[in-house]
């Protein structure tokens, strides 16, 4: 028991150290808006805080390390949380906490977050504006649009917009896909296909992903990353 505690303690210390490095790294600072970068530098040097951060603000910095302060992650493998439905974010946090959804980073990070914090975190990120990417891969975008709007007739893969909405804006049940990072989407589709991720409602997404090949996944992910919310 004592041994386990020590291990967890060391793991947490290692993670904090990792995040400290991340916040101070030039890559991170470059990616963040100037004021946010400044704020995280403050957090990284707690000996001389210029501005006192609330516990919630400190917690947001933990998320910002991977998802960006405004929830529009610039790391292609990480999801944009901005504009996701509050209930959807909550459900995912609970799934990570309970082990129904796993990811090497998130499964560790979530051990530091108390379920009481989920509501405020979900609320914050749901209210951020989702940014939309651009792409010049015309062929891929064309194929992706077809998958999004019509599905794949041959294998019987349903169109994404059936559940996620015509502009991919999603809701509490089905997540927002417009503007989402393409690499993250491809990874999730692969995880659903293999069953590594299985916290989809009623197994619907697993059934869909089984009918998509890697080319179709890449295409639809690329298309959705550029898709704008309808006016």
């Amino acid at each position, binding site marked *: 028991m004592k041994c386990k505690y020590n291990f967890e303690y060391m793991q947490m210390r290692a993670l904090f150290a990792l995040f400290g490095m991340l916040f101070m790294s030039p890559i991170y600072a470059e990616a963040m808006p100037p004021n946010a970068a400044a704020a995280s530098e403050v957090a990284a040097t707690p000996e001389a805080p210029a501005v006192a951060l609330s516990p919630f603000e400190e917690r947001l910095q933990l998320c910002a390390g991977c998802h960006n302060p405004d929830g529009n992650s610039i790391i292609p493998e990480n999801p944009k949380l901005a504009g996701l439905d509050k209930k959807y974010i909550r459900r995912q946090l609970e799934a990570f906490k309970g082990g129904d959804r796993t990811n090497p980073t998130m499964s560790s990070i979530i051990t530091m977050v108390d379920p009481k914090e989920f509501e405020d975190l979900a609320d914050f990120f749901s209210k951020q504006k989702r940014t939309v990417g651009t792409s010049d891969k015309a062929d891929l975008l064309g194929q992706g649009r077809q998958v999004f709007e019509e599905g794949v007739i041959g294998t*019987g893969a349903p169109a994404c917009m059936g559940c996620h909405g015509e502009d991919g804006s999603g809701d509490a049940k089905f997540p927002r896909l417009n503007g989402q990072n393409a690499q993250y989407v491809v990874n999730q589709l692969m995880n659903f296909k293999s069953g590594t991720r299985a916290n989809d409602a009623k*197994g619907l997404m697993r059934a869909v992903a089984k009918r998509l090949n890697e080319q179709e996944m890449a295409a639809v992910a690329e298309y959705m990353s550029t898709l704008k919310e309808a006016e």
Partner: protein
Amino acid sequence: MKTILSAVIVLLFGLQATVAQAADAYVPKVYGKKGYVWDEMTPERVQVLKQKGDPVNGKEAFRGCQGCHKADAAGVREGVYPRLTGQHASVLIKQITEIRAGIRKNPKMLPFVQDPAISVQEIGDIAEYLSTLTSYRENGKGPEDLSAKGEKLFMTNKCYTCHGKHGEGNAEKSYPAVAAQHYGYLIREMNLIRTGVRGNSNPDMVKAIAKFKQSDMDAVADYLSRLPDYRTLH
């Protein structure tokens, strides 16, 4: 002696368990196989028909179907996915429960209608919701107008006995409305019914279209696809 006696007891209990299991488990009987009964009231179908369908719940549950059948439930013009709007609730319940039971073979649809994708309650809810929809988005028709030939075949082969003179079907008997359905879907299903691949073929219909050439089926499908939605006739 004791050993024999206990062996007999074990055997008897084992037999009893097997018999009990057979009585419990529903075994689907598919067209062409021994014991097939067309339009069998499967336990699940009986259960759904007993419930009251809730169209509001049905609209929500139907979201998982929209990826193929579209938000207005009018399907795809090419006929890959049928038009469901205006179809009788009883027909939808028959087809969904038979697909779930493995009687009607529809591997493309199965993952999206089987447990847990849709609950028994939701089958009735969706059927109720769809029967109230009034999308008249244009359906897919044949490449050339064969409706004169199609109508003649439809009437001389007495297809109207089940499907109605206006292609309106029969809600009470769970015969589908076929008017204004997509041409491509009608042809596909006629072939699947005739060959038995569909799994839940009505033997009377198999007989009725047994002598049809492909060109005859094309004509009937074209005729039906050009009929107006029967609900617009009133």
